[in-house]
């Protein structure tokens, strides 16, 4: 048993200068009863470390064993990053953004143009009234002329039907 080395490592351990490998070496050495008897103060600490190390190893082994026992079905579908749900969500967001863009465009560009179309071209009400009156009379006259023509054709068709009818 290399007590000199153990002693020197213990001194370093107390000063906090030991590496993980050196501490592992000390834990291994304290498994022996001679070492435990020679350094009884440190023995309790290193035996505690030995127990914890064993528990950690057991947990590691258990995890590996448990994973080995898990049976993965051959037809198991792993969730795809680009599933239908994800794509439909992205599409909905894009659609909303496009709609918002169109809405803003309509308000900023189309509306002013339309407003211009509906703005009064005449500022004086008297002149505007005269224009409106002329427009109404023009529509009225042309409409009546068209109706007159319709009546003429209707009368012609009526007469035509009468001629075609056989005399009883």
């Amino acid at each position, binding site marked *: 048993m290399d007590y000199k080395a153990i002693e020197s490592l213990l001194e370093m351990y107390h000063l906090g200068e030991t590496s993980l490998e050196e501490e592992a070496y000390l834990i291994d050495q304290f498994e022996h009863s001679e070492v435990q008897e020679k350094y009884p103060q440190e023995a309790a600490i290193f035996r505690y470390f030995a127990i914890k190390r064993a528990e950690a190893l057991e947990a590691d082994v258990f995890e590996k064993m448990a994973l080995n026992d898990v049976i993965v079905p051959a037809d198991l579908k792993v969730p795809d990053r680009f599933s239908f749900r994800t794509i439909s969500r992205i599409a909905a967001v894009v659609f909303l953004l496009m709609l918002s863009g169109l809405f803003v465009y309509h308000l900023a560009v189309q509306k002013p143009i*339309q407003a211009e179309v*509906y703005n009064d071209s005449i500022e004086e*009400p008297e002149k505007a009234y005269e224009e409106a*009156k002329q427009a109404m009379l023009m529509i009225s006259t042309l*409409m*009546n002329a068209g109706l007159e023509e319709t009546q*003429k054709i209707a009368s012609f068709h009526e007469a035509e039907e009468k001629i075609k009818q056989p005399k009883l």
Partner: protein
Amino acid sequence: MRKSILMLVIMVIFSANIFAQNDPMTNFFKKYAGNELFTKVTISSKMFSMFTHFEPNDPNEKEMMKALSKLKSIRILSADSIPNGKKYFSEAMSSIKGTKFEELMSVVDGTTDMQFMVQETGGKISELLMLVGGSNKFYMLSLHGDIDLKQISKLSENMKISGLEHLNKVGGNGKKKE
């Protein structure tokens, strides 16, 4: 998820309603409003409300005022000396195709084409469009509001009109096309 779908549907309906306002005749009017060959006249509902201050004594003028008070807007696009008026008439007619406009009356003769179109909303005529296209003239008149065709028809019977010489042609030689 349901909420977002509902929101989406509401937005689509809302936006469709807004974008639908840009009707083909507005586009047509917009296209030629800046053209020097055409005379543009627009009268809005605001101006119509100012007409109520007039108090005519003549019964015919009163009748005219009554008809105008129901309107919301008038748009006129006219040209008396353009190279091919029928071309503009055809263009206007093709832009109306597929819209809610229904044909009211159509008169075609050798020199002049005339078309009356109406748009109904809730059983009432909300828009009346008149298009006239001749060899060197084009008229587009659009009335918006509550339109009573019988009342409009009476207007010209009551008043004497001058300066509408081309009407004689339409009345005399025209052929009615349904």
